[in-house]
């Protein structure tokens, strides 16, 4: 059963928000710090001094990819928490939703750093763009939920029910977000598999 906090209008937990903003800021700082590399055309990047670090299979680039994948995996654990609705000892759904949003945002940014703004592999591109679109839809969903939470509060005061328009909007968003998430998950798994199976040479041996 939803707790009392879950019935309250959605509000990002402060700690998660602060940590999330710090993480996003750090990633943004890294992005700005290596701006000169990310602006180099792709064919010239192997000649850049930071190529071996920032390339997707580089020491830092690979970390971004691993971080993104881990965050995505953690992000999807929100679904598990929703499925295990009665496991209150895992924390409130509100916090899980906040982590879901923040980790999705950080994972998207980590994926941007991992991709170095260049996605040439179709499979990687699919995963990348699915992640970005999923994040965008997630942000849209967050806005919708925040508005919907306010309207629920009003409904509880005024005794109104959600309109069918809002229901359709939620259904459409949910469909799109889930569909993109599934596509992201599929593409991500294959991307990781291909990278490990065929790209182990470069990843493990540091060969560009």
């Amino acid at each position: 059963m939803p707790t009392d906090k879950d019935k309250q209008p959605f509000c990002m937990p402060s700690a998660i928000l602060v940590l999330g903003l710090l993480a996003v800021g750090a990633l943004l700082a890294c992005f700005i710090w290596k701006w000169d590399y990310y602006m180099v055309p792709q064919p010239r990047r192997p000649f850049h001094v930071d190529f071996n670090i920032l390339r997707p299979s580089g020491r830092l680039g690979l970390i971004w990819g691993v971080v993104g994948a881990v965050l995505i995996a953690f992000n999807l654990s929100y679904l598990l928490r929703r499925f295990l609705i009665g496991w209150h000892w895992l924390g409130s759904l509100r916090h899980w939703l906040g982590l879901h949003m923040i980790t999705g945002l950080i994972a998207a940014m980590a994926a941007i750093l991992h991709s170095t703004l260049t996605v040439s592999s179709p499979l990687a591109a699919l995963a990348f763009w699915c992640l970005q679109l999923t994040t965008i839809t997630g942000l849209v969903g967050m806005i919708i939920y925040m508005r919907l939470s306010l309207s629920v509060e009003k409904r509880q005061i005024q005794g109104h029910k959600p309109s069918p328009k809002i229901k359709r909007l939620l259904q459409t968003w949910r469909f799109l977000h889930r569909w993109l998430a599934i596509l992201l998950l599929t593409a991500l798994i294959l991307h990781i598999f291909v990278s490990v199976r065929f790209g182990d040479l470069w990843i493990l041996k540091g060969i560009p």
Partner: protein
Amino acid sequence: MLLNPKTPLVFGIIATAALSGYLFVRHPIPDSLSRAHAQFIPGTDIYSCKECHTEDGLKAGCLSCHTEIAGQLDTKQGYHAFLARNEGFDCGVCHPEHHGKSFPLVSSLSWPGGDPNAFDHPHCLYELDGRHDRIACSDCHVDKLTQVFSLPRFSQYPRASTFLGLNQDCLACHVDVHAWPSEKACLDCHDQNAFDPASAFQHDNVFVLEGVHADINCSDCHPIPSIDRMEAATKQRTPGSIPYHKVNGKTCEECHTNPHHTVWNAGCENCHLGRDAKWSDGLRGIDTKSHETTSFSLTDAHVTVACQECHANDADYNQRYPDPRADGYQRQLQNCQGCHEDIHAGKLKQTCTTCHQISGWHDKHLLFEHDRDTTFVLDAVHKNLTCQECHAEGDLTYRAEGTECTECHKEQYNALRGRTKSLQVDPDPHFDRIACTDCHDMNFPRQSLVRYARRCADCHNDQYTQLAFQWARTLEKRRSEIERLAGKDNVASEQTREDLSEAAECGFHHLQLTRQLYDRLLQIVQEEETGKRTSQKENAVWTGH
């Protein structure tokens, strides 16, 4: 709801999985291959990956096509073989892929340090230094120096250029301007700073330049090369220097034409030294022993003769030292006339050496023997004569009147014939009836009257011995009378004296004629005596005595 087949989400999941699977199978590559590889591996599916990413690794995949590299690894030559000695050697380290079609496979990433110009060629057998360290890569790695190859599997795509296959031998890049197979390594003379001058080259190490060799022009020994060679050499030498081209050799004969007609037993250096200023200094090496190599051995008097006596200094070489094999060559040891004038004017039939020897012409050196070398044997009578008594003084042809008695003794012969300058009578009875030697014994230079008398008796009888004595006394008596009269008052005229000599020569050869000559002379002398006295008396009268 999630699993409801009627839900569009289910179809979305299926479509998503299908798209992902399709991309996984058909387009799994991270980025497109470079243009070079993409033309051979156009596919982007997962099976195309295995063209390079084989079960044995990426290197095996690369070498399956790049046989030229595999060849280097097999033969352990070249830079790739040098790199392969390091564990972890992999093609992708220097030639990264999947960076787009325009990405160059050979780039700055292909060299340690990232700067191709700083590549120090660690695999080379020698350290690149000097000018080699400054010139551009393309100055050496050009098509004309390396064989542009085609990969066997892709022969329709010949390589436009390559860094491979450049031999480390100097001549692989440099034209051998010396144009002859070098006996030395290039670096024995040249360094890597400049081809010219050759810093390590010392001419004296190859050929000592001294004497006249130190003053001649380089091109006198190093002939001007062909035009092609000249052009190639010009590019590699500083202006004004000569192209050090092939000399004919280091031995004298290889550069100099041997003017000698003699095949000397010793080499040129036995006489001619490098420090000599002129060839004629080599005469130091000529002595009697070395001269034996010629066809003319120097012995005896020839030893003391100055060289220029036979080999005139002012003549050219061929005249000074004529070729013995040439037609008309006469300087044989046996042919004195080849050098010496024949003072006998060729009148003597004998060869020079019949009479002369090399030790000298005259006196004790003379080998001449009259009996052996002439047709006239000097008997006891003629042996003590001086040469001039038979041969005219100054006549080196040594011509005589003849070998018969009558050819020299003409007065006696004429007397026999009854002929004198003043009288002509019948020949002596012995004329044409006996030989000279019937009366004259040639074993006695001064034959006595006794022996003559015996010869008379030999043909006639013993009375002739006494007759001979009587005739001799008579002739002597008359001669004495004439000489007495002629010499007493010194009245004998020149004619009288000649007639007296003529009568003496006539002698026994024609007794009748001799008596007539004496009688006539006596009469003349007596008449002269009488006339003289008369003249003296008349002169006395006229002078008052």
